[in-house]
């Protein structure tokens, strides 16, 4: 078994940097949305908040890089992948519930589809450093 700390070094450094950016972006976005216009699209904004929590959990768990935190990261990133696919599909199917975009709407189109690629890279990286 390799050293769990390998998760936060090498290419993982860049992966975690990108996760950090999304943690920050999602948190700020959800915070402003909920504080200023929650009534406009409560479902979308609550999902924004969920996405923010997931991104923060994944970022800190990857950066901590212990045996336990790697498990937390795996769960968080798996939820993230399910979220971006689920919300992405749902936002095309029922656009009326998403008048204002969340990070995961339309498979992360507003963020250059990075939200769709990121969890895949995250899971691959976790497997690679297992």
């Amino acid at each position, binding site marked *: 078994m390799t050293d769990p700390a390998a998760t936060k070094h090498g290419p993982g*450094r860049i992966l*975690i940097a990108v996760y950090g950016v999304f943690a*920050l972006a999602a948190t700020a976005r959800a915070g402003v949305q909920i504080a200023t216009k929650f009534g406009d699209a409560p479902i979308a904004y609550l999902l924004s908040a969920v996405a923010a929590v997931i991104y923060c959990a994944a970022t800190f768990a990857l950066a901590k890089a212990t045996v336990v935190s790697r498990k937390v990261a795996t769960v968080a990133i798996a939820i993230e992948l399910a979220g971006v696919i689920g919300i992405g599909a749902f936002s095309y199917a029922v656009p009326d519930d998403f008048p204002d975009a969340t990070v995961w709407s339309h498979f992360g189109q507003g963020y250059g589809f990075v939200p769709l690629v990121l969890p895949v890279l995250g899971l691959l990286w976790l497997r690679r450093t297992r």
Partner: protein
Amino acid sequence: MFAPLTWFLVALALLAMVYAVVLAARDKRIDWPVLGAVGVVEVALLAQLVVGIVQLSGTERDVSGPFFVGYLVGSLIILPIGAFWALAESSRWGAGALAVACLVIPILELRLHDLWAV
């Protein structure tokens, strides 16, 4: 808004990003020139926060205040965290991580521009 100051800090952030990518490609750690450039961008971002808030308070435009100020404030914490994260890595990937942080700045400026232009 979008005075020479913004163009300056976007250009310098992109330059720092390219330099950091070159460092990573040459298997080097981040060095003082790139940290200096990032420091100057940070000072410019601080100045932009002040200019931005002053201009927001005086504008007739329909700019979303909370989002606009959110982006201005948010842009301040990217580079310090990125630099810290890069410095704590003793390989080329630290420079790569700093390049990611540098790339975020022009993206944030683009969003600020869109918010202002609405």
